[in-house]
C-alpha cells in the first residue's frame, strides 16, 4: 500500500487507513491535518481513520454511531489491543462517510444489521497492526536494532537486549515516512490482552454528569429553534396553514411549510412547541385516510389466502406431506405495529453558509443525511459535512433521515442555523414502525410423532419495499431480505418445508425495528413449535434437539440455556418455565423464561440467556445488550402496539404506549458461548427469543396458548 503522511503545523501524525470495505482499490494516500475534530463541529475534521499523534494519543474515526450499544468502546479495545497502547489512549468518534467507512455491498455509511463489530473487527485490527509494524520499523531504524528483537507494549517499542525503548509519540514522525505492510501480522487470539474481556465504556462517565452532548443539545451561535407539526394521517399533503392562528405568540420567528405539515420557528423550543400545537393546518385528502386496525387485519387475513406470494423456501413436496401426515398441527399468529420510541426524539441541526452545509444529527445513516441535505440545499454532496453527536437510542429508527430534509428546508427558508425537533407525539405519529404481521403455520407429524413437514404462509408490509423498489421487480413480487428472516434460513430440519410471504399494502411506513423480521417470526415459530411438541407428546427441549440433531453449534446454545435455566429440574414453587431459540444476524440465542401467574398478572422473574456470537470483544457489552434486549422484548409483548383509526395512529405518547418499567423487569443471566465461528451481531439477536419463551411459560402455567400480542390485548398484564 502506498503512503500517506505528513507534517503540518509542526505536528507529525501517523495515519493508517482502514482497508476498503470491498474489493475496490485502496483509497489514495491519506493526508491529514493536525487540527483536532472540533467538538462543536467547526472546520477541523478527521480525514483519516486511525491517527497517532506525537502525544501518543490515537484517534479512530469510527464507521459506526455510538447510540448506547457500546461499539465505540469495542472499537477502542480492538485498536488498543492490536496496537499495544493503553485503552485510555484511544479516542473514538464517528467519522465522515468515506469509501473505507462504508458498509458493503450497498456502499453507504450506516449503523445497522448489528454490523458494528462483525463487519468491522478484522478491518480495524488490520489497520492497527499496520500502524504497530510501521512504528516498530521506525524504532528499528532509530535504535539500529533488528525488527525481530523489538517488542511493543503500552505505547512503546522496546529493545530488551539493550534495555532501550522509544514511545510511539517519538516514532510517529519517522513511521509516517515508512511504507505500510500490506500483509501485517495480526495478533492471534492467545496474544490479545484486551478483547474478549470486560472493559468500562468510555462514554459512561459523561453520561452520569449530564455532560454528553446529544443531537437535542446542539447549540450554534444565532440558532433558531423549530418544532414540526405534521399530518397524522399517513400520506396526507399540506393544503394550507393559517399563520394568523399564531398571533401574539412571543418569540415566533416564522412558519415554514413542509410537504406534509409545517415547522414553527421561534427563539426557543417552548415557543416553537406552543406554536406547533396551536397552528391551524389543512391537509389534502389521501386514499388511505379511513384506514383503521380492523381494515389492516382484513388485509393481513386476505394476504394469508392470496394466490400470489414470494416463496423463500420450498423443499420437498409439502402438499403431499401434509395430506399424508399421521397428525397435523395448524395455528395462525399475529403481531402488531410497534414503535421504536427512542428516548431522544428525532432532531437535526442545520447550518448553511454559502454553498457549504453542516448537519448535526443523531443518526444511524450518515450518507443519507448528506444526500438529503445536499438535495434540499442544492449543493453537491461533497459540500455537506455530517456531525454525529451522542445518540439517545436508535433501534433502527434513525436509519430514516426525513428530519434532515425538513431541517435543511427550514434553515434555507429562514437563512439562519436551526435546530428542528419532533415532539414525542410527532415521533409516534410519523410511523416507520415494525410492520404488523400474520402467519398461518402447519406441521405434519408421522406416526412416531416426528416432524416431517412445515408450511408457513405470512402476510405483512415490506420493510425494504419502498426503500429499494428495484428489489421488487419480477414475477415473485421481489424478495425482501427481512420478509422471512429467521424462517427461510433456519437451522431446523423439518423435512418438507415451504415458507411464503405475501406483501400487503398500507399507508403507514414500516421500517427496521430492533431484530426486524426475526422479532415477529421468533414469536410465531417458537410458540408454534411448543404446540407441535404438545401434539407429539414431547418435551419442548427434546423436540428442538431432534430438529437440530445435525447441528452441534445450535445444540450447544440450546442445551446451555436449558441447563443454566434449570430446564428439566423442578421450578421453585409457583414458577413455570418456557424455552425458545432463534438465530439472526449471525448469532444464535436461546432463552429460558421463569414466570409466575397470579390471576391475570404475569410476573417474569428471571430470563437465562445463552448466546453464541462467534467471539466477543467486550463481554460486559454482550451482557448489557442481552439485558436490554430482554427488556425490549418483554416491553413489546406486554403492552406495546400501535392501533389505527381514521388513517392515523391512536397512540401518541407513553401514556397510551407504555414502555416496561423497573418494577416489571426481570433478572437476566447471560452465558456467552465462544464457538470461534465467524463473528455475529449482538444488538438485535437477544430480542426474538423473549416473547415465545415467556408465552411458552404462560402455557406451562395456565394451559392457555397466546397467538396474538401484546398480552394486554388478551387481558393479561406484566
Amino acid at each position, binding site marked *: 500500500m502506498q503512503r500517506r503522511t505528513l507534517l503540518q503545523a509542526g505536528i507529525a501524525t501517523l495515519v493508517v487507513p482502514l482497508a476498503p470495505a470491498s474489493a475496490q482499490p485502496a483509497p489514495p494516500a491519506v493526508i491529514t491535518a493536525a487540527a483536532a475534530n472540533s467538538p462543536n463541529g467547526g472546520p477541523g475534521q478527521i480525514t483519516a481513520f486511525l491517527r497517532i499523534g506525537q502525544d501518543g494519543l490515537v484517534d479512530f474515526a469510527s464507521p459506526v454511531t455510538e*447510540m*448506547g*450499544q*457500546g461499539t465505540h468502546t469495542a472499537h477502542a479495545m480492538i485498536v488498543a489491543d492490536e496496537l499495544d497502547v493503553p485503552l485510555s489512549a484511544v479516542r473514538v468518534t464517528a467519522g465522515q462517510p468515506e469509501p473505507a467507512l462504508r458498509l458493503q455491498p450497498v456502499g453507504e455509511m450506516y449503523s445497522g444489521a448489528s454490523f458494528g463489530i462483525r463487519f468491522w473487527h478484522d478491518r480495524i485490527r488490520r489497520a492497527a497492526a499496520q500502524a504497530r509494524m510501521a512504528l516498530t520499523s521506525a524504532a528499528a531504524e532509530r535504535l539500529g536494532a533488528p525488527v525481530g528483537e523489538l517488542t511493543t507494549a503500552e505505547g512503546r517499542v522496546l529493545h530488551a537486549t539493550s534495555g532501550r525503548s522509544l514511545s510511539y509519540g517519538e516514532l510517529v514522525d519517522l513511521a509516517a515516512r515508512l511504507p505500510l505492510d500490506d500483509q501485517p501480522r495480526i495478533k492471534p487470539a492467545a496474544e490479545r490482552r484486551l478483547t474478549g474481556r470486560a472493559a*468500562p*465504556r468510555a*462514554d*459512561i*462517565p459523561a*453520561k*452520569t*454528569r*449530564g*455532560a*454528553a*452532548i*446529544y443531537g*437535542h*443539545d446542539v*447549540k450554534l451561535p444565532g440558532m433558531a*429553534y423549530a418544532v414540526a407539526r405534521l399530518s397524522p394521517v399517513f400520506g396526507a399533503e399540506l393544503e394550507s396553514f393559517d399563520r394568523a392562528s399564531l398571533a401574539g405568540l*412571543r418569540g415566533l420567528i416564522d412558519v415554514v411549510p413542509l410537504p406534509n405539515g409545517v415547522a414553527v420557528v421561534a427563539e*426557543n*423550543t*417552548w415557543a416553537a*412547541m406552543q406554536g406547533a400545537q396551536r397552528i391551524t393546518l389543512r391537509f389534502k385528502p389521501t386514499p388511505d385516510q379511513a384506514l383503521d386496525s380492523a381494515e389492516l387485519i382484513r388485509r393481513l387475513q386476505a394476504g394469508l389466502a392470496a394466490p400470489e406470494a414470494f416463496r423463500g423456501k420450498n423443499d420437498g413436496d409439502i402438499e403431499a406431506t401434509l395430506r399424508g401426515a399421521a397428525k397435523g398441527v395448524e395455528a395462525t399468529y399475529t403481531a402488531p405495529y410497534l414503535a421504536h*420510541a*427512542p*428516548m*431522544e*426524539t428525532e432532531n437535526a441541526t442545520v447550518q448553511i453558509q454559502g454553498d457549504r452545509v453542516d448537519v448535526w444529527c443523531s443518526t444511524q445513516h450518515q450518507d443519507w443525511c448528506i444526500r438529503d441535505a445536499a438535495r434540499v440545499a442544492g449543493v453537491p454532496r461533497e459540500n455537506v459535512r455530517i456531525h454525529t453527536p*451522542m*445518540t*439517545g*437510542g*436508535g*433501534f433502527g429508527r434513525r436509519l430514516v433521515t426525513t428530519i434532515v430534509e425538513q431541517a435543511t428546508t427550514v434553515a434555507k427558508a429562514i437563512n439562519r442555523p436551526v435546530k428542528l*425537533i419532533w*415532539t*414525542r407525539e410527532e415521533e409516534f405519529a410519523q410511523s416507520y414502525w415494525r410492520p404488523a404481521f400474520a402467519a398461518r403455520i402447519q406441521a405434519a407429524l408421522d406416526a412416531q410423532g416426528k416432524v416431517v413437514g412445515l408450511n408457513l404462509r405470512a402476510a405483512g408490509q415490506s420493510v425494504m419495499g419502498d426503500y429499494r423498489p428495484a428489489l421488487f421487480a419480477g414475477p415473485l413480487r421481489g424478495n425482501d431480505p427481512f420478509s422471512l428472516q429467521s424462517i427461510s434460513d433456519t437451522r431446523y430440519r423439518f423435512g418438507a418445508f415451504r415458507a411464503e410471504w405475501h406483501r400487503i399494502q398500507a399507508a403507514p411506513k414500516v421500517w427496521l425495528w430492533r431484530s426486524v423480521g426475526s422479532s415477529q417470526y421468533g414469536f410465531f415459530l417458537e410458540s408454534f413449535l411448543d404446540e407441535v411438541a404438545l401434539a407429539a407428546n414431547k418435551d419442548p427441549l427434546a423436540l428442538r434437539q431432534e430438529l437440530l440433531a445435525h447441528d452441534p453449534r445450535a445444540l450447544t446454545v440450546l442445551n446451555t440455556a436449558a441447563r443454566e435455566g434449570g430446564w428439566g429440574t423442578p421450578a421453585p414453587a409457583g414458577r413455570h418455565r418456557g424455552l425458545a431459540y432463534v438465530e439472526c444476524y449471525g448469532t444464535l440465542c436461546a432463552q429460558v423464561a421463569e414466570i409466575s401467574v397470579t390471576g391475570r398478572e404475569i410476573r417474569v422473574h428471571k430470563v437465562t440467556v445463552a448466546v453464541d456470537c462467534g467471539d466477543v470483544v467486550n463481554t*460486559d457489552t454482550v451482557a*448489557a445488550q442481552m*439485558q*436490554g*434486549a*430482554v*427488556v*425490549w422484548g418483554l*416491553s413489546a409483548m406486554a403492552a406495546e402496539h400501535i392501533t389505527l383509526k381514521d388513517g392515523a395512529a391512536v397512540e401518541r*405518547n*407513553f*401514556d397510551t404506549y407504555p*414502555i*416496561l*418499567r*423497573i*418494577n416489571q*423487569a426481570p*433478572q*437476566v443471566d447471560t452465558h456467552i458461548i465462544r464457538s470461534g465461528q465467524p463473528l455475529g451481531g449482538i444488538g438485535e439477536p437477544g430480542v426474538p427469543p423473549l416473547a415465545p419463551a415467556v408465552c411458552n411459560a404462560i402455557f406451562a402455567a395456565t394451559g392457555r396458548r397466546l397467538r396474538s400480542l401484546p398480552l394486554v390485548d388478551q387481558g393479561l398484564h406484566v
Partner: protein
Amino acid sequence: MIDLTVNGQPHRLDAEPDMPLLWALRDLLNLTGTKYGCGIAQCGACTVHLDGQPARSCQTTLGELAGRKVTTIEGLHPEGAHPVQLAWVAEQVPQCGFCQSGQIMSAAAMLAEKPQPSDADIDAAMAGHICRCGTYQRIRAAIHHAAAKT
C-alpha cells in the same frame, strides 16, 4: 422577568411565567443535562430537584419557582462524584444514556431519604422513569451499590 436559583446560582430570566423549567434550563441557561422525553411527566427524563425533592421539570413552570432552589444533574455534585454517579459508573449502567440524568436525580433523592432502600423502595421511587435501552437491572444494582457505600 423571573428570578430563580439553579445549582446555587441566582438567575434573572426574560421569559414567560408559563414556560416549563425544562426549556428554561436547556435553551436559556444551557444546562442540557436535563432532557426532554415526553413532555407529559410519563418518562422522567426531565427530573430535577426542587428543594431536594425530585420534580418533573416539563410540568414545573417558571412562575412556580420564586424562592425555590433548583438542582440539576450538573449541580448534583461539583465534580460529578455524587455516590449515585460513582455507582452508575461502577455498575456500567448507561447505554444510550438519555434517560440517566433523570434516573440519577430520582435515585439520589430517594437515597437521601432512605439510605438503605429495599427492592420495593427502589421500584416505588424509580417506576416513574423509562429507560428504553432496558438498563433496569443495573440501575437497581447501582442503587444498592451506592447505598452500601454510604
